[in-house]
């Protein structure tokens, strides 16, 4: 009879066992903040559809100290999500060959962050002009 009895270790709390996994879980967790912000904007759209009073009520609610604090937290979480998103991007893209050479991971990450920054600034500029 075989003396073999392979032992399978439990996976409980696996993500706490390595700093790399903690960072991964924080990255995945911050996606909820991205969703929360999208939901906030969606509520604004619904309120707009309900008429002027509802829309103004939503605008007022956004100005409350609680809402401002919430948005500050959202901003930090979304910035972190953006950073870790582009950090993993070189691992998820097919090789990009430029001038016969594979593009370096740092260039891909840097390019992604740049694109996010430019897109944010363009959007901010547009909203700014509309608000004038």
């Amino acid at each position, binding site marked *: 009879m075989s003396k073999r009895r392979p*032992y399978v270790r439990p*996976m409980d709390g696996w993500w706490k066992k390595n700093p*790399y*996994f903690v960072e991964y879980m924080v990255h995945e967790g911050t996606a909820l903040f991205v969703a929360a912000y999208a939901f906030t904007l969606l509520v604004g759209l619904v309120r707009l559809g309900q008429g002027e009073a509802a829309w103004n009520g939503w605008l007022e609610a956004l100005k409350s100290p609680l809402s401002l604090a919430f948005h500050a937290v959202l901003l930090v979480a979304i910035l972190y999500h953006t950073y870790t998103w582009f950090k993993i991007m*070189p*691992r998820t*893209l097919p090789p990009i060959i430029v001038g016969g050479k594979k593009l370096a991971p740092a260039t891909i990450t840097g390019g992604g962050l740049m694109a996010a920054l430019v897109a944010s600034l363009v959007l901010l500029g547009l909203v700014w002009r509309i608000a004038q």
Partner: protein
Amino acid sequence: MSESQKTIEIEVLRYNPETDQAPHLQVFQVPFADDMSVLQGAQYIKDHLDGSLSFRWSCRMAICGSCGMMVNGEPHLSCQTFLRDYYPARVRIEALSHFPIERDLVINMEGFIDKLESIQPYIIPKEKRSLAQGEYLQTPEQLNAYEQFSSCINCMLCYAACPQFGLNADFVGPAAMALLHRYNMDSRDGAAEERMELVAAEEGVFNCTAVGYCSEVCPKQVDPANAVNINKTNAAKDYFLRFLSPKGGSK
């Protein structure tokens, strides 16, 4: 051991299937020298302190892929990990994570071998070629397309780094998928459509959530995460393009 001899504590996860219900830690005092690898530490224990300690090793130079183990919770080849990087603190060594433990530091790799077989890890030529037609020719660019993915030494560190494999042992996993990609990318091969069935299957690439740690721990810079994620795109393309022109091996 002289009085002035420095020692380091090595804590080993022990498991004897004949006597133990579960693994337990045991600490050994090992004479320390600057040039000692973690593997040499384990060998000292086996030779001088406890001959029953079981672990795999062969080449001692990071090419055979046998001596992978968890060193302070991180997957490493123990032959190229040095005790001096931990001294004077205690070092903990354990069998590779996410694999069943056979005994002490020896894991059960049967599942991995099955996965390697399942990806058809050999060139399946596009068309039959007779000897008289001569060898297949390949340009440096065609070689570049797969060379990185052919450097895998089957050490399984990437599996020990992959929580999704830990949570679902059926996941084909990083190394096997990197090897699958290696053959798909080979200009001499014509079986990418056949292999697509496995890529897109329940146990295929979509188990991956892009943790990325597999590529971090790879001692040969294979970047298996890249192979897995490129094949997510390939599987999605195959799925949607099949509506336009039905083909491919996926069911």
